[in-house]
């Protein structure tokens, strides 16, 4: 990636700004009230005008994923909120076998809440669109400003902040534990090259508990670009499991930016599994300003062909007794490219911080590449930080041992690769999801595809 934006990239970014300015009234009118206070446009404008501002791009955080380049494709945008003619909740099916979940479908950037869904959840819980939220001011105020503001280094996040019109909101009151996971099924399947901008806001009250499963699917022959802007607020003593499963395709570019605020004694379990993708970049920023917060951050990538997968995790430790633990495992074949950065920032005055980081990578072809970067920025003394990175090939001795017992070479490879990824899957605390992902990973290694039994797709618009 170049250290400077090219004129063409600047022109492409300016088009988004022009589009926003020319349609500001429409965007304002169609937006959920919670999203009306925007700052993405100012960040983008300042960058293009070279003004002194927190916004910066290109930057070190995007060494291996060129956002500006990806934004040069002329994507359509759904700023008039046209909904696909068929309700995806009726025509599309995605489930985790043996798991009851409160499932919401998102086609492009349109959210579909199935009838009866709110009744599945305890009283006082809100699960719905941002637009339908009855008390937008009160709900917005539940989130810390730092979690809500856009990422100053990610242009895809600014564009999302400018033009996302709606999204999903989950508010779990103090002391409430959701009886089932919330599953969000994102579908990208347009009959033209399209960009979808999605928003997800999750607030957990004190000692509240919830599990979220986000499944990203993409279909069709057209180019799809999806941006997701996710805001997580974990109040004192709360616990959130956030599981992301990506099964898109080579036509899809996906930028996901998650900002998580963890208050005292909260627990975040994050697990992101990329089974199929085109170009995917997940940026996760975790803030722990108080005490006793724990973040378990895991991820796995299985990639081949020309797939590109990039995970960037930044943990900002402040306060006292906060900790983070990262484990990322990639299996890369074909000419795929993987990148992982684990950035640990320990603020001045922070005490008893502990952070562990492991990035382990298996390259199954000579052409596959992985870039693994630990970045430690520490301004305090009372800190324990470990990091390690490995890159290797499959163990030939183990392969031979298995073959000597009658297991064919492809099966032996599959078993070893599956075992490698399994460390990450084992950290998922929902047994049914763990089981299903284990099956999907096996299928991915066997056939190159990772389709669930429970998932099916009926053409959304093509027959209508």
């Amino acid at each position, binding site marked *: 990636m170049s250290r400077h934006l090219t004129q063409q990239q600047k022109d492409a970014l300016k088009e988004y700004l022009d589009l926003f300015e020319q349609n500001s009234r429409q965007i304002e009118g169609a937006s959920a009230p919670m999203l009306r206070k925007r700052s993405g446009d100012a960040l983008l404008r300042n960058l293009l005008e070279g003004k002194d501002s927190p916004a910066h791009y290109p930057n070190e955080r995007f060494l291996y994923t060129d956002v500006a380049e990806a934004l040069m494709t002329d994507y359509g945008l759904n700023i008039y909120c046209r909904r696909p003619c068929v309700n995806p909740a009726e025509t599309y099916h995605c489930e985790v076998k043996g798991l009851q979940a409160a499932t919401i479908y998102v086609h492009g950037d349109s959210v579909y809440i199935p009838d009866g869904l709110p009744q599945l959840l305890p009283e006082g819980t809100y699960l719905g669109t941002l637009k339908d939220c009855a008390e937008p001011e009160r709900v917005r105020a539940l989130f810390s400003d730092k979690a809500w503001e856009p990422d100053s280094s990610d242009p895809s996040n600014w564009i999302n902040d400018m033009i996302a019109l709606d999204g999903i909101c989950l508010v779990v009151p103090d002391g409430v534990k959701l009886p089932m996971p919330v599953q969000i099924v994102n579908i990208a399947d347009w009959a033209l090259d399209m960009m979808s901008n999605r928003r997800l806001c999750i607030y957990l009250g004190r000692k509240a508990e919830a599990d979220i499963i986000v499944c990203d699917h993409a279909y069709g022959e057209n180019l799809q670009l999806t941006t997701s802007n996710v805001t997580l607020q974990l109040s004192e003593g709360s616990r959130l499991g956030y599981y992301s499963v990506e099964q898109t395709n080579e036509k899809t570019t996906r930028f996901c930016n998650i900002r998580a605020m963890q208050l005292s004694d909260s627990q975040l379990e994050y697990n992101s599994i990329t089974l199929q993708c085109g170009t995917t970049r997940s940026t996760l920023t975790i803030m722990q300003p108080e005490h006793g917060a724990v973040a378990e951050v895991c991820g796995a990538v299985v990639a081949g062909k020309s797939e590109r997968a990039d995970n960037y995790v930044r943990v900002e430790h402040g306060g006292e007794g906060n900790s983070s633990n990262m484990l990322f495992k990639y299996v890369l074949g074909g000419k795929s490219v993987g990148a992982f950065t684990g950035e640990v920032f320990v603020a001045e005055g922070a005490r008893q911080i502990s952070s562990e980081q492991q990035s382990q990578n298996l390259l199954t072809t000579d052409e596959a590449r992985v870039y693994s970067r630990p970045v430690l920025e520490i301004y305090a003394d009372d800190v324990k930080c470990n990091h390690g990175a490995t890159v290797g090939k499959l*163990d*030939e*001795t*183990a392969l*031979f*041992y*298995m*073959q*000597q*017992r*009658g*297991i*064919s*070479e492809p*099966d*032996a490879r599959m*078993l*070893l690769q*599956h*075992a*490698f990824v*399994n*460390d990450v899957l084992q950290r998922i605390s929902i047994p049914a999801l763990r089981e299903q992902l284990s099956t999907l990973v096996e299928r991915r290694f066997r056939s190159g595809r990772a389709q669930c039994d429970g998932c099916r797709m009926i053409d959304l618009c093509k027959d209508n």
Partner: protein
Amino acid sequence: MLEIENLHATVEGKEILRGVSLTIAPGEVHVLMGPNGSGKSTLSNVLVGNPKYSVTEGSITFQGKDLLALSPDARACEGIFMSFQTPIEIPGVSMTKFLHAALNARRKYHGEKPIGGADFLKLLREKRKLVGLDAHFMNRGVNEGFSGGERKKGEILQMAILEPQFSILDETDSGLDVDALRIVADGFNALRTEKTSALVITHYQRMLDYLKPDFVHVLMNGRIVRSGDASLGYAIEEKGFDWIKEELNSTSA
């Protein structure tokens, strides 16, 4: 069952086997002895098709088939099993999953239906008793955290599950205490039939005591230089290999 003729093999370009010929009939147990570096492990690795070893001359016929034309997994499915000198760890692949996959691969090769999970667990429970390995070992990764003795018992357990026609025990006795050796040897003996045979590589008399081999061969410099019954093994235990070297030198002189 197994006919090795004039076998020459190299590892990393260096010739280790220089014309080995050996015939093993059904029901026979052959012991292979020889000084370190004489080629014993090379012979066993060549038999199972380890890709690090290259055969440059000669042939191996197993039950009428050209063994050298078969892949390592096909050789295993044909009924050849090797108990490794140092069984490796495979973290993340449980012993149960591994053995289930191995048994079903073999069944598939012979056109048989795969064995289901419940039936396999029953079989595993039964076979474990033979070597006295507890159930918790089966949920661990293959050989993961196993002691030396447990690994060797694990090898015999695998043999019991896979029921090979021909087994190679490559220094299975090394590193075992007296009790563990007895368990391993008893396990091996319990699996012997009139139709199965074995090639046992060992340095020790104890193994001869337990296995009561039909033949003992001595391998030196890549060739079998002496063959006899168990008494040859006891003579080596008592006098070492020097007397054989001296005899060979005087013959060639």
